[in-house]
């Protein structure tokens, strides 16, 4: 199991991912046309970023994130148009010719960057619809163009919670036998920890369990909410230092508010013992009032700077995911034990800080979804 860094609007991908790789915390980075320009802007160009990442030993992927084009209010196109991804209108995938042309353009860019082929996909809200059929058709064309590609599946919580409908769609995709998978849960907003629902967790786990035996599955933008998918057999988990790296949210791809100040650092401290994050102020209060408890939950001290917080977060994810590198049933029980422990720790920590305890919102849905998966597996 490994941790991958998703792309960021900041100019820090190569430096921070590279440093984390040197520390043994990160294996790969995933570039996005929404975050990285093809030609140098105030940000490094795609090829410069790739060169720096590769020099640092980081494996590089390019995710076209075509599914973001179907998100409501998508409009964050500062860099997107610099990539030659469409012959005509962006997002036009109605005909086989349009699909094939888009796939070829995506692969051409990935070839240019020296990245493996990762197919584009369409955002799904239902596993049985004309749109799901188009997503299947697009994937089929992607495999026809390169049978060694990885396929991508992106959907909202309703899609992933689709039960037998989801299983049918996944079964049809599995027939295409790609070399691996990117799975993304897309959400309305980018709150961290992500607000999950049990059905989505169960569906994601079932899917990873089905696909992960024969091919690697990347849980894109999964972060802490992706741990159940790792327990079900996922190979890698996407994350980063900004909320847009931790969550694939509609808000991350929306047109920026011209009046917004922007640039605020994501300021949270990840607490391993809570399987969640606390805003930095609350984390500091906890550390001031009960240093022993804070040190145990983090573990360590509250990271003082954004880069420290990122390295600490990556360390926590490595430890948590490393603890799940077990046979399926053992991984399930290990994660269940983590959540059950967090359910106990949350009220204690919240009491010390003087905030509302969040275990019901952040841990219980994950645990219920995980237990549903365990039930269907007979664990």
């Amino acid at each position, binding site marked *: 199991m490994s941790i991958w860094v998703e792309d960021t609007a900041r100019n820090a991908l190569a430096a921070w991912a590279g440093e984390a790789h040197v520390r043994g915390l990160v294996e790969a980075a995933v570039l996005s046309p929404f975050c990285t320009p093809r030609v140098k802007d105030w940000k490094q160009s795609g090829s410069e970023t790739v060169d720096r990442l590769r020099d640092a030993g980081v494996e590089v992927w390019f995710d076209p994130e075509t599914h973001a084009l179907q998100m409501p209010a998508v409009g964050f196109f500062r860099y997107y148009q610099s990539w030659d991804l469409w012959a005509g209108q962006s997002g036009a995938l109605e005909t086989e010719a349009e699909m094939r042309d888009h796939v070829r353009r995506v692969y051409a860019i990935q070839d240019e960057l020296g990245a493996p082929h990762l197919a584009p996909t369409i955002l799904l809200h239902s596993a049985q619809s004309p749109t799901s059929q188009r997503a299947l058709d697009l994937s089929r064309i992607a495999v026809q163009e390169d049978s060694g590609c990885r396929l991508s599946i992106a959907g909202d919580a309703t899609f992933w919670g689709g039960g037998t409908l989801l299983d049918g769609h996944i079964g049809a995709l599995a027939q295409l036998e790609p070399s691996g998978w990117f799975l993304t849960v897309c959400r309305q907003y980018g709150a961290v920890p992500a607000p999950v629902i049990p059905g989505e967790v169960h569906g994601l786990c*079932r899917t990873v369990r089905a696909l992960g035996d024969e091919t690697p599955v990347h849980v894109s933008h999964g972060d802490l909410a992706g741990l159940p998918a790792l327990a079900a057999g996922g190979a890698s988990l996407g994350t980063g230092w900004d909320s847009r790296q931790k969550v694939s949210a509609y808000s991350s791809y929306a047109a920026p508010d011209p009046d917004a100040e922007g640039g605020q650092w994501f300021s949270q401290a990840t607490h391993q013992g809570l399987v969640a994050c606390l805003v930095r102020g609350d984390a500091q209060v906890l550390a001031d009032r009960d240093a022993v408890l804070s040190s145990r939950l983090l573990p360590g001290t509250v990271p003082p700077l954004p880069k420290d917080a990122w390295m600490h977060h990556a360390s926590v994810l490595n430890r948590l995911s490393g603890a799940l590198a077990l046979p399926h049933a053992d991984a399930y029980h290990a994660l269940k034990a983590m959540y059950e422990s967090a359910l106990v720790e949350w009220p204690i920590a919240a009491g010390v800080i003087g905030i509302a305890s969040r275990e019901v919102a952040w841990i219980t849905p994950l645990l219920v979804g995980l237990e549903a998966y365990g039930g269907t597996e007979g664990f």
Partner: protein
Amino acid sequence: MPVTDELISQALAALDVVIVRRLRDGGQKTVKLVARDGDELVLKVVAVGSSSPAALSRARREVELLGSIDDPHVVHAASHLVELGDPVEGAAWLEEFLQGEDLDALLTGPWTWADAAAMAADVAAGLSALHAIDVVHRDLSANNVRRMNSDGSYVVMDPGFARHVLRAGLTVGGQPGTAGYLSPEHLQSYSGVPTAASDVFGLGILMFLALTAEFPIPAAGDEADYLRRVAVGETQDLALLRPDLSQSQVALVKRALHPQSARRFRNAARFAEALEAIE
């Protein structure tokens, strides 16, 4: 629209055969044993009317498919398709006559593992020939498998609802199939429709039937309840019904019948490899 005597007469003339005896009559389709130059063949005649616009294209697809496959475990076409009437009111074609018995008639009691495995290996070989050209049978049942008198081998028949994965357009709901033999995907539409893994589910049903003389998802009783059990893949426990089977034998059938099609053997060839690996 039923098959009329006039249509049958036209078919006999067009294909230059004479009737030996009736095999199966079923509304829009009639199947007869016929003879030509001393050889016995099967004549199939379908009625094509305004109420069954897909019947002609389905018949064309079946004959085209059978003509493109040369496998001992798939029935062979013995003629091209001939259209009957002007405007077209029916279609007819010839297939080889398989001297033997339908599998359905043989499922009267629990078989040995060796016999069930031999049957499944032959059926898997036939399905593999379909899957190799990206065709899904979609209606595998004990009525569509025949045991040959000559050597005891099994042959897959009636891929009349077979779907070419790449040539098919949108398929919305209403999947073909036979009660007792439905996979969870038979209840789905759009991207969730039957795949080669659904035929593997059918293989699992045939093995379960052979080993226990019971359906893994019995179709008896309330139809809505049956469909619910199909949707979630709620199967009987083979280990309870056949405690004499080994864990690997039970596991093979169980995997073929997994509710998630992505967790079954991907296609009949993969199933056959796993079957062969079992002692």
